[in-house]
């Protein structure tokens, strides 16, 4: 993290929200809730980081270097909107394609491909997993949430 969660909170207190929104820290965050759980002032730091991510994504000011996380989250939600449940192959395909285009780094596209045979052997790879029956409903839920 370029700045620690408590420093993110301090930036906001000092009126420097814009700097917090552009920090890499909000995208590096793992949402593990350690900061919220250990804050001596009971500040809900992790929840604040969530709010900053939403604002940064909305305003299009996400830090460049950490954009892979944002690309991943967007690809994930796109996938759920389409299928109702996660289709891993489809998610990996979309995320890798978008991230490769964003970084112009072709090696990223095939970086994990070597795991595929082992995953297949261990019956962990599903080319056509079952989705939900009522996919239209899932789309309506997304629409009503403005997603």
């Amino acid at each position, binding site marked *: 993290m370029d700045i620690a969660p408590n420093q993110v909170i301090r930036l906001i207190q000092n009126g420097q929200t814009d700097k917090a929104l552009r920090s890499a820290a909000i995208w590096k965050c793992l949402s*593990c*809730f350690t900061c919220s759980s250990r804050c001596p002032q009971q500040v809900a730091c992790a929840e604040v980081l969530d709010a900053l991510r939403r604002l940064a*994504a909305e305003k299009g000011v996400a830090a460049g270097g950490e954009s892979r996380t944002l690309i991943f*989250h967007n690809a994930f*939600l796109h996938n*759920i909107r389409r299928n109702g*449940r*996660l289709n*891993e192959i489809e998610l990996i395909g979309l995320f890798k394609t978008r991230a490769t285009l964003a970084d112009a780094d072709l090696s990223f596209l095939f970086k994990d491909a070597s795991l595929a045979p082992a995953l297949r052997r261990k019956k962990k790879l599903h080319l056509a997993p079952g989705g939900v029956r009522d996919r239209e409903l899932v789309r309506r839920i997304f629409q009503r949430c403005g997603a």
Partner: protein
Amino acid sequence: MAIGYYPGCALHGSSNDYEQSVRACLKVLGAELKELDDWICCGATAAHSLNEKLSVALPARNLALAERDGLDELLAPCPMCSMELMKAAKEIAADNRLRDEMASIVELPVTGRTKILNLIQLLERFDLKPSKPLDGIIAACYYGCLLTRPAGIVNFDDPEAPSSMETIVARLGAKTVSWNYRTECCGAGKTLCDEDTVLELSHKILTDARRHGANCLVVACPMCHVNLDMKQAAAGRRYGVDHDLPVYYLSDLVGMAMGLAPEELGVDRHFVVRLHHG
């Protein structure tokens, strides 16, 4: 009585070894699972990072399905799912306006009365008398992040010094070790988008477990398993060590202690496989 079951996407995807383990383990314990009909994804980190309303609505749809089908309790073996379901249930139960809004979004009434259980909470209910005590196992019990956090939402065990897994594992006749990384995060869902972080954290967790004398790790989370088992070789290559530490789901150990063969629990489908200890 049957317990409602919310598998979540991971257990129906590449973590289907966890589903095999949970199902086999609970069957041998005599618990009957009723899978939630037409469940949808809980939204996970992506939803709460990008759209707050959606992060309540997706779990709310599942809570509404459970209420409609008369399931008072729902087992969610993935801590990401269980935390999201618990959070939505708590928020909806406390706020009439949100309850009405969610009912219209998910097209079913929802009150948030469903009790959500993680795997440990369900296993704690059973009188675990091992028919095959786990003599050779010296386990480092690993909780990670969302089993015990946020404490105000999950209301389970102690977020700084948890003990529920050690209690169960000890009852199975295995030894447990005291170590430092029990509640550190493994990188969770960042496996694909920030692998460097995942490998660094996994390496630290595996190293500390080994240093304190463990011969295996025990987890109750599909993402922990991916980062510590599937990614173990990559973490080892990155840092020039061979960790060689099998990672079991808690249900694997319970099942094996109850006499199931490792293969029946899907243990042979892990990446780091050791079928016999001792």
